[in-house]
């Protein structure tokens, strides 16, 4: 089983919604489409479903061209953000409805409905009407209906977005289990990086109608190929600053300065604070020039854990405390940085704050945004 998009594009009223895209999804895979609102997730799903015709390109299902096949004749099921159920039918009949259309026997229907309902923990509610269920149960009912057909392709368009935070957490943990049992190709659209990580599988990051990267989810997260993918797959946002290499010296921002010849690091030029820098492997092979350095918020630290860590003197604007972690909003050289540190920290706002960064966590991008050297900590992942 496989779904192949061959150079498909979509234009509506002369506007490009999806740029030429090729993508192959294999059987028994969970595939996340990750991107902000209007990045093309829903458009791409509608093309996969056959709800819209691509302007150019072909769609193959198990090698067969299905570009012009009607949605009813395709082997798919779809679940939307807004839960859709038949309000006048019982939960049982809602789940059974696709099988009734397929004219399955009552015996088969009964078995399939019960199996699907059990999986979605709806067993006790089969006689109820959807509106007598909680929001989470209503969406489970829609999910059960999508699963009961045992379609080869299951499309889930932000299925948890309208649910409470805690319900989302619960269903998120269940979806990978359901998926593992089904063997179908799952496609799951979301705006949330954390959701993509929890679902695992593969992730395609979307930006303005283009897939910027497609690979194993943790691969895309740990080794983004460009700044756009890195931004799309970061929450809190990735921090960026200028990196300049000149001979044996590397300057970060306008202040932090690494000298790879003397293996020392100057902080805030003129300061006497110097630190040994023994390995800067992923900087060593860079040609001279200007780059963009990027690093994730959780890699900033309040204490120096590694002697090689680079110190930055920032101004602390705001802290947000979640009870177990503290978000730091800082200003560094007129850039806004976010730090995520473990524990609760009561720090003075508006004051100088020194934060530390292990250089192995720095991604180096070219000025065109493409990756030049991945962070060395992520290489083994």
């Amino acid at each position, binding site marked *: 089983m496989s779904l192949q998009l061959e150079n498909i594009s979509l234009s509506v009223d002369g506007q490009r919604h999806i740029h030429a895209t090729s993508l192959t999804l294999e059987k028994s895979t969970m595939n996340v489409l990750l991107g902000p609102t209007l990045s093309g997730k829903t458009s791409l799903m509608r093309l996969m479903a056959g709800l819209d015709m691509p302007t150019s390109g072909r769609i193959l299902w198990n090698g067969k061209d299905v570009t012009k096949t009607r949605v009813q004749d395709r082997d798919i099921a779809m679940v939307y953000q807004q839960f859709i159920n038949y309000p006048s039918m019982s939960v049982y009949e809602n789940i059974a409805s696709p099988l009734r259309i397929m004219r399955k026997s009552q015996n088969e229907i009964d078995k399939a409905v019960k199996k699907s309902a059990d999986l979605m923990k709806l067993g006790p509610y089969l006689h109820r009407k959807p509106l007598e269920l*909680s929001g989470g149960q209503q969406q489970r009912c829609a999910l059960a209906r999508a699963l009961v057909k045992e379609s080869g392709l299951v499309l889930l368009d932000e299925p948890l977005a309208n649910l409470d935070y805690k319900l989302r957490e619960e269903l998120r943990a269940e979806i990978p289990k359901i998926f593992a049992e089904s063997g179908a190709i799952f496609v799951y659209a979301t705006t949330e990086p*954390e959701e993509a990580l929890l679902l695992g599988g593969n992730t395609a990051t979307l930006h303005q109608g283009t897939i910027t990267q497609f690979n194993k989810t943790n691969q895309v997260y740990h080794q983004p190929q460009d700044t756009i993918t890195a931004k799309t797959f970061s929450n809190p946002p990735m921090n960026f600053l200028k990196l300049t290499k000149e001979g044996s010296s590397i300057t970060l921002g306008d202040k932090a300065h690494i000298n790879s010849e003397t293996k020392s690091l100057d902080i805030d030029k003129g300061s006497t604070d110097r630190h040994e820098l023994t390995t800067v492997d992923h900087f060593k092979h860079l040609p001279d020039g200007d780059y963009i350095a990027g690093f994730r918020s959780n890699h900033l630290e309040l204490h120096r854990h590694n002697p090689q860590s680079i110190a930055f003197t920032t101004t602390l604007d705001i802290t947000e405390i979640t009870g177990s972690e503290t978000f730091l909003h800082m200003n560094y050289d007129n850039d806004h940085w976010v730090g995520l540190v473990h524990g609760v920290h009561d720090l003075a706002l508006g004051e100088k704050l020194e934060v530390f960064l292990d250089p192995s966590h720095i991604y180096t991008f070219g000025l065109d945004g493409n990756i030049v050297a991945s962070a060395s900590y992520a290489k083994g992942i």
Partner: protein
Amino acid sequence: MAKITLSNLAHSYSKNPASPSDFALKTIDHVWEDGSAYALLGPSGCGKSTLLNIISGLLAPSQGKVLFDDNDVTNASTSERNIAQVFQFPVVYDTMTVRQNLAFPLKNRKLGAAYIDARVKDVANMIGMQDFLNDKASGLTADAKQKISLGRGIVREDVNAILFDEPLTVIDPQMKWELRTQLKALHQQLGHTMIYVTHDQTEALTFADKVVVMSEGEVVQVGTPTELFERPAHTFVGFFIGSPGMNVLPATVVGSKAMIGNHEIQLNFTYEQLSGTIEMGIRPEYIKLSNEPSGLAIKIDRVEDVGHHKIVRARHALDDRSLDINVIVKEGLEITDDMQYLVFERDKINIYADQWLQDGKAAI
């Protein structure tokens, strides 16, 4: 600005409420201190919107009083209460410019043109929209529109309080960061009494000085984010806050020892004569995976890599059933096959009887 007092307040949507379950809001006494930032946190149907509507005057309570400072406003209309509100969906006039939208609440109050002009500029600066004042609102993105809604919420300086009803629900995660920090900065600058309703724990905890947690029409705990995290007063708070929430395990407690099945755990406190259903609460953050057989024996079902940490889904066999236990492991820590035991951080263990937190005496 005002202190808001809820006195013996309750509400039922049915005319003749017979049982406690007929009340969407059970009896509550609470004071919202002047100038503080509060979050009202709970799942759908917990009564938080009912409470907000009573404070704003959209709903008259079936019992009790609402006071703004010392004035009884229980029967006062929304406009008489002089409050500002920001809703889930941006409320902006598409045909107006950003400037006209921000000026609207001031024009309605017939304030002078020079004052309005200066005030609108100030607010536009605070919400980072100063460069878009002459743009039509219709062309703006959802998050820019919500910024204008926020701006309209704060443009009047004389309001008693600002109420927010899930203001970030329709905003993309990356933009939530910007709006959230802006809100926080605004509170620091303005010092208004703010009440923020949400089901999202991150929004509640990061915004508020104090979080009011509600469940089934009742306030179950009022506390700082740290208090809610470290010492949940009720197992519901432990479950609802944290991601995943606190592990709640059936236990027997005698003196300063807790037993999970046959496994003994030494506690920092001594508990005397607990009655009811006894449970032990421990957050996933405070459990360590170990290869020491002195720990609680488990099997690992699944490991989820969430980037900056991993969530380990583990299972402990207890008699003929199994207990699910979540553990949070830091990025970079390798999970080896011999890690088949759990060790709990002693000073982070909470003991519950019939779901309510128990205070112990310091053990020797």
